[in-house]
C-alpha cells in the first residue's frame, strides 16, 4: 500500500514550495516578480493535491499491493548501490570508482567468481582510460581524496 507514501511525498513537495515562496518574498521587487507569479499558484495547487491525497488515503484502507511490496524490497538495495557509486566517484574519481563498482557488482550481484569480477573491473578501467583519456582527451576529475 503506497497511499501514506504518496500523501507524505505530496506534503514534502508542498513544504518545498512553501520554502521557495518564503525565499521569494525576501527578494527585491523586480527579481521576485516572475517567481512570485509562479510559486504562489504552485503552492495553492500542491495544497489542493495534498488535501485530495489525504482524503483518498483515509478512504482507501485496502490490502497492500504485492507488486508494490516487491518494489519496496528492491528499492533500498537499488538506492544503496546508486548512493555508494556516487559517493565513490566523488571521493576517488571515475577512473577508480567505476571499475571498483563493476568489480563489486560482478562479485556480489552477478555472483561471478572473484577472478572474473576482477577481469570485469580491469576491463571497465581499460575502456574508460582508452576512450576518454587516450582517444577523446577528456579530463576525468580525480575525486576529492586524490586532489587533496
Amino acid at each position, binding site marked *: 500500500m503506497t497511499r501514506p507514501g504518496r500523501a507524505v511525498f505530496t506534503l514534502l513537495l508542498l513544504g518545498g514550495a512553501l520554502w521557495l515562496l518564503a525565499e521569494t518574498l525576501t527578494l527585491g521587487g*523586480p527579481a521576485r516578480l516572475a517567481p512570485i507569479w509562479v510559486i504562489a499558484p504552485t503552492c495553492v495547487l500542491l495544497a*489542493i493535491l495534498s488535501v485530495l491525497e489525504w482524503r483518498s488515503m483515509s478512504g482507501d484502507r485496502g490490502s497492500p499491493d504485492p507488486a508494490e511490496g516487491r518494489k*519496496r524490497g*528492491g528499492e533500498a538495495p537499488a538506492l544503496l548501490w546508486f548512493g555508494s557509486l556516487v559517493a565513490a566517484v566523488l571521493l576517488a574519481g571515475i577512473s577508480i570508482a567505476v571499475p571498483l563498482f563493476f568489480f563489486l557488482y560482478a562479485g556480489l550481484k552477478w555472483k561471478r567468481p572473484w577472478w572474473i569480477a576482477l577481469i570485469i573491473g580491469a576491463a571497465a578501467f581499460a575502456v574508460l582510460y582508452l576512450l576518454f583519456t587516450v582517444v577523446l582527451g577528456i579530463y576525468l576529475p580525480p575525486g576529492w581524496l586524490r586532489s587533496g
Partner: protein
Amino acid sequence: MDAVLNAAVDGLALVFAWPNILYPVIGTLLAMTFSFLPGVSGVTLMALAIPLTFGWDPLPIVLLFGAFMGGATFMGSVTAILFNVPGGAPNAATLLDGHPMAMRGEAKTAIACSAAASAIGSTFGIVILIALLPALRDLILRFGPPEFLLLAVWGLSTVVMVSSKSWLKGLSMAGIGMMLAFVGLDPRTAELRFAFGTDYLHDGLKIVPVLLGLFALAEMIDLIASGRASISGKRNAGQLSGSTRKGCLAPFRHRGLMLRSSVIGTVVGAIPGIGGTVAAFVAYGHAVHSSSEDPRFGDGDIRGVLAPEAANDAKDGGSLLPVLAFGVPGSEGTILLLAALTLHGIEPGRELLADQLALVFALIWALFLSNWLTSVLGLAVSGQFARITVVRTEFLAPVILSLVIIAAIVYRGQPIDLVVTALFGVFGYYLKRYDWPRVPIVIAFVLGGLFETNLHLTLQLQALGRIDLLARPIALVLVVLTVGTLLVPIIRHRRRNRPGSPR
C-alpha cells in the same frame, strides 16, 4: 525564385562532388557515435572540431558541421525510446509514447517510426524552408518581446497535453520547473536568487544534470527497484512484437499529421532562441488535439513518436535561417556553427544569402543528407537496438548507471554536477513512483528563462506605451493558439464524459 532554385542545384552538386561527399558521411557517422557516448553530444563534437579545422576551406567546414547537426538529433530519440533517457530536451517529447512502446516490446516499431519520421520531416522542413524563405525572413523580423513571451506561454500550455492523467499535478510540476529556471542571477537586476550560499548556483542550473537525473538515473533506480526482468519485461528477442515495416509506414498512414508537424517544426525552429523543445512539444500537443480514432497517448501511441520526431528534424532546416540571415543563433549547436563559419571568414547576413547562396544550400543539403543517412542506418540497426530491451536488468542497469554518472561528470568536468544529477535522480525516482509527471518540469525549465526575460521587456515596453496588441497579428495568433491548446482537451474531456457519448 529561379536564383534560389539554381543555387539549390549548385549546392547539391557541390555536396555530391568527390571528395566533398566524404565530409557529410564521416560527419554523420561521428555525430551518431558521439551522441551515443555519455556526456559527449553532437555539440561537444562541434566544439572539438573547431580548432581541428583551422585552415580548411569554407566548403568542407560547412559540409562537416551540417552533418554534425543532423547526425546527433536522431540518436537522442533512440535513447529516449530504449531507456526513457532523452538525448536532449527536444527528445523528451518522444519518450512520452516511445518508452511505453519499448516496454510493450515494440521498440523496433518506435525506432523505425522515429527514423522514418526524421527523414521525411527533415525533407519537408527543407522544402518548406525553400518555399517560405522570403516570408520566414519577414516573419522573424516581426518577433519582439511580446511575441517571444507569448511563444513561451504557448510552449508552456502544452503541459496540459503531457499531463493528461492529472492536470493539477502537471501544472504544479511546471511551477517547480519554472522555479528551477529562476535559480541564479535575475536577468534585470542581477540580484542573486535561490543560490542558498553556493557559488555553483550563481549561473543557474544546467539542463544536462537535470535531464540526466530526472530521467536516466530515476529510470535505472526504478528498473532495479521494480525487479523487472528487462526493460520490456521479456527474456529473449523472439518475444518482441515490434516491426520495422509498421514503423516505416506510420508516417504515410498519418501523412496529414506528418506534414503539419513538419510545418510546426520548420516555423518554430526558425524563431531564434526557441529551439526544438517548443517545436517537439507543440507538435506532440497537436497530435493529441487532432486525434479522433482510439487515442492511447501516454501509453505508447505511435503518433506520439511520429509528431515530435518529425518536428524535431524539420526544425533543423528552419533553425539555419536566423543564423545565416541575421547571425542570430538559437541553440548551442547553431552557436558553434556560427563560430565555425565566422572563424573561416563566412559572415552571415544579406551578403551571404545574396552572393554565396550555393554555399548556404551546400550546408542545407549536408544537413538533409545527414538526416537521411542517420535514418537509414537507424532503420538498419533498429532490430539490434530493440534487443537491448531484453537484456537482463541485473546486467543492463549497472552499465547504464555508470554511463550516466560518467556523463554527469564529463559534461563540464565538475564533480558538483554529479551531486546535482544524483539529487534530481532521487527526486525523479520518487516522482515516477508516486505518478507525478516529469516532462512538465523539463518544458518549464527550458522555457522559464525565455519567459522571464521577455516578461520584463514586455512590461517595460507596456510602461512606455509601446505595445498595441491589436497591431501585432503574430501575438494575437499566439494568444488564440494558447487558448485553443488549453481549452480543446477540456472540451473533449467533457464531450467524452457526456451521458450517451461513445467511449
